[in-house]
């Protein structure tokens, strides 16, 4: 071969090699999202679907980035949760602690981590409150009065207070004038306002809602009197289907525990703080035995999953 | 090892006294596991003189004054007081600062390191390994020509200045002028009776001057000569006495957790003491030995002592000192800056064989 031809061949080979290397480098920067497995997280609605998605889309995106799994957020109404989980609509769950117990007892749901929020961290409690100046100053005064509860499946809006009343010798079914549960959304706030504005005499108010409403200036601590307070119980909880890969569950848990208040994700071109959006101060790894207190309450109150007909 | 050599028994006695009194000073009122801690004492004294404003760390430690003046009196009595110095003054001053950085990040000087260990504080183990590693590194440096230079006999009385300064501190201790601060809370509010502290300091200063005892020197000699050298025996006497008195006074609590004046950042304990060990070999002695040498008229050691006072002020003012919660960001930066200084000095002050 002539020297000139050899030079051209050498140059071509160098050019091809450079192109291959350059292309490989370029393409390796691209995330091949098509290959990521898709999994769904069912988030229990507190008030409505829009609020749920606003709260949990950033967290879902964060988890996708951390675990290299395409997580899809699915908002689910509280009363539909068990059925839709049983039907296999989602692998991971985010629910209140009573729903967690129901799914655990009936379907062996695995415990991942619990939300931390407010003064009690990963726990919270309930209170029975009355308006200050109403003349109701102790728990026994509520006999014959009008009471408002939160939703029936709310651990600190119904279960804990109902249990507290039973243990104090007050039967809500017999000893009250009547009790009601507000309709529609924002039930927790409605029951607090219901007492403050005189529609009801007493309310079963979650401590966390009282704390948040006080902080937001919606109510003042001097507006009401706490007649009794329940023991503190675990707050909202992440769970996983029993058939889920244990390694993935561990990674999911670690991603939650590693979250810091400054962590952000990009949603529609906007950087959003994950914890702030999720209304959480962080996550904590509780033990399943920490939920026994709720199990005992549910048995005493004859609530699912221990109800007897 | 010659059992008939008086010097051997002086070293043994020094070690035993240091261990015994190190424990007893804590029994008599000094902070737990800090019966003798040169770095803590310097931080407290710097605070007393107004060099920093941590209200929990301001007290003019009589032991410190005793070490220097005891050494001075002993040196004068034995006609060993010699004003000498002039070897790399600024590097020595800065070395003093970084000695304090290393001690503050570990929370203790080499004496306190072993007082903690002999009280059962297993978190000190990382510091021991660090100190040994640092001494080894320093020896490697020396054997490869790193040297700050030798001092010369000085015409002037520069070696008198540091003992004179501590004599002034003694006057402050006795007359207590208003500008000398004294904490009423925190660890600086824990102290043995002044007379006892001063007496112990004078005694230890004198015997340490006679024996040339040094913790890092013991480690160095053990590496170079094993137990043929006397110094390691003094060190063993120190540890043995400390263990005995800790057990006897009910202060022996073995464990990793809940130990007074300790933190769980073992890597930084290792690095802090590593820095101290390395510097100590380069400058010729641990913080305690520097105080003794300063009392003997060694102006180079005097500069190290002044550097330690500056360091004592800085570690408190700049948040370098570690706490039970761990080592701060600034503490970590300061330790790494110390190693940078040490390595740069080793490069610049090295005699290379052509």
């Amino acid at each position: 071969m002539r020297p000139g031809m050899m030079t051209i061949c050498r140059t071509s080979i160098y050019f091809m090699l450079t192109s291959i290397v350059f292309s490989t480098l370029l393409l390796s920067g691209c995330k091949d999202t098509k290959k990521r497995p898709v999994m769904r997280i069912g988030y229990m609605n507190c008030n409505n679907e829009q609020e749920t998605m606003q709260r949990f889309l950033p967290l879902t995106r964060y988890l996708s980035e951390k675990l290299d799994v395409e997580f899809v957020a699915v908002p689910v109404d509280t009363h539909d949760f068990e059925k839709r989980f049983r039907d296999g609509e989602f692998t991971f769950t985010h629910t209140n602690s009573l729903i967690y117990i129901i799914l655990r007892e009936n379907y062996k749901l695995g415990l991942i981590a619990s939300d931390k929020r407010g003064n009690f961290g990963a726990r919270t409690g309930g209170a029975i409150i009355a308006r200050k100046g109403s003349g109701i100053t102790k728990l026994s005064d509520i006999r014959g009065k009008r009471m408002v509860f939160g939703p029936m499946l709310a651990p600190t809006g119904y279960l804990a207070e109902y249990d507290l009343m039973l243990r104090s010798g007050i039967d809500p079914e017999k000893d009250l004038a009547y009790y009601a549960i507000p309709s529609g959304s924002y039930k927790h706030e409605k029951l607090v306002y219901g007492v403050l504005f005189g529609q009801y005499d007493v309310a079963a108010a979650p401590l966390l809602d009282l704390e948040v409403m006080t902080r937001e200036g919606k109510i003042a601590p001097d507006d009401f009197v706490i007649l009794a307070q329940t023991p503190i119980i675990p707050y909202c909880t992440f769970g996983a289907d029993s058939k889920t890969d244990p390694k993935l569950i561990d990674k999911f848990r670690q991603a939650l525990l590693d979250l810091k208040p400054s962590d952000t994700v990009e949603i529609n071109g906007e950087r959003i703080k994950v914890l702030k959006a999720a209304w959480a101060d962080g996550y904590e790894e509780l033990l399943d035995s920490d939920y026994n207190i709720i199990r005992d309450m549910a048995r005493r109150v004859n609530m699912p999953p221990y109800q007897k007909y | 090892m010659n059992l008939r050599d008086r010097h051997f028994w002086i070293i043994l006695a020094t070690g035993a006294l240091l261990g015994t009194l190190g424990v007893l000073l804590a029994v008599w009122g000094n902070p737990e596991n800090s019966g003798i801690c040169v770095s803590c004492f310097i931080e407290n004294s710097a605070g007393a003189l107004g060099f920093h404003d941590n209200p929990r760390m301001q007290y003019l430690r009589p032991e410190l004054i005793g070490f220097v003046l005891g050494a001075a009196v002993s040196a004068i009595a034995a006609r060993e007081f010699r004003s000498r110095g002039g070897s790399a003054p600024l590097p020595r001053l800065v070395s003093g600062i970084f000695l304090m950085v290393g001690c503050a990040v570990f929370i203790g000087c080499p004496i306190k390191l072993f007082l903690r260990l002999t009280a059962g504080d297993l978190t000190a183990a990382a510091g021991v390994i660090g100190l040994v590693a640092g001494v080894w590194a320093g020896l490697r440096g020396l054997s490869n020509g790193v040297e700050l230079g030798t001092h010369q006999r000085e015409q002037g009385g520069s070696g008198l200045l540091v003992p004179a300064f501590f004599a002034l501190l003694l006057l402050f201790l006795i007359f207590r002028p208003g500008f000398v601060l004294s904490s009423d809370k925190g660890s600086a509010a824990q102290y043995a009776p002044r007379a006892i502290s001063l007496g112990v300091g004078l005694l230890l200063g004198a015997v340490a001057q006679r024996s040339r005892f040094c913790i890092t020197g013991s480690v160095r000699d053990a590496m170079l000569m094993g137990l043929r050298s006397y110094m390691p025996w003094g060190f063993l006497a120190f540890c043995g006495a400390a263990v005995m008195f800790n057990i006897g006074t009910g202060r022996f609590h073995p464990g990793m957790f809940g130990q007074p004046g300790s933190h769980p950042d073992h890597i930084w304990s290792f690095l802090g003491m590593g820095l101290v060990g390395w510097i100590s070999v380069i400058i010729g002695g641990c913080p305690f030995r520097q105080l003794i040498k300063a009392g003997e008229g060694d102006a180079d050691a005097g500069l190290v002592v002044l550097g330690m006072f500056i360091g004592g002020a800085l570690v408190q003012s700049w948040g370098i000192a570690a706490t039970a919660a761990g080592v701060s960001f600034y503490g970590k930066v300061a330790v790494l800056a110390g190693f940078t200084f040490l390595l740069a000095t080793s490069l610049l002050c090295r005699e290379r064989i052509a």
Partner: protein
Amino acid sequence: MFKDRFDRLLWLLLAVAITALLILLGTHSPGGGNDHSATGLNKALEREMAYQARVALLQKLYAPVENLCKSGDLQGALFRLDELARTYPGEAHSHILKGEILHQLGAREEAIASYVQGIKLSGDYIDKKSPLSRHDDIRRLVDEGLKEIGGRAKANPGNASLAAAMKNVYYLQSRLAGGCE
């Protein structure tokens, strides 16, 4: 050092300087005239007064919280404390009181975390003799923590949250033991 006139002059001036110094120190009486040493003495007094004033202010500010605690309205005390914490963020007293209340309400881990935050800000609460001392309460909490949380942590060695809770317990235990802080 006595070789010539200049040496003798230097010795004479040295003697004069030392004599003048001794006379000055000997005849000085604190509090007279343009006296900066009186300021030095006052510094210690001023510091003590500022500290006592701070303690009195804290007791006044947080009195409503303490009164609610005494009357048994712990949750009300917690709400009041939240309000004060928003006004005085970073105040150690707030964390300490929160720790006390949470302990009484059964939230042991959160109580320990609050105490840790408070003590990191101010070591006065761990000192036995300080007017703000909570030494005995913290000792009790640490003993409970070692037993209860320690037991659960031992049974669940992989649990990161329990390990973090134990780290807080060990921190309090270490501070109770003393040391140079």
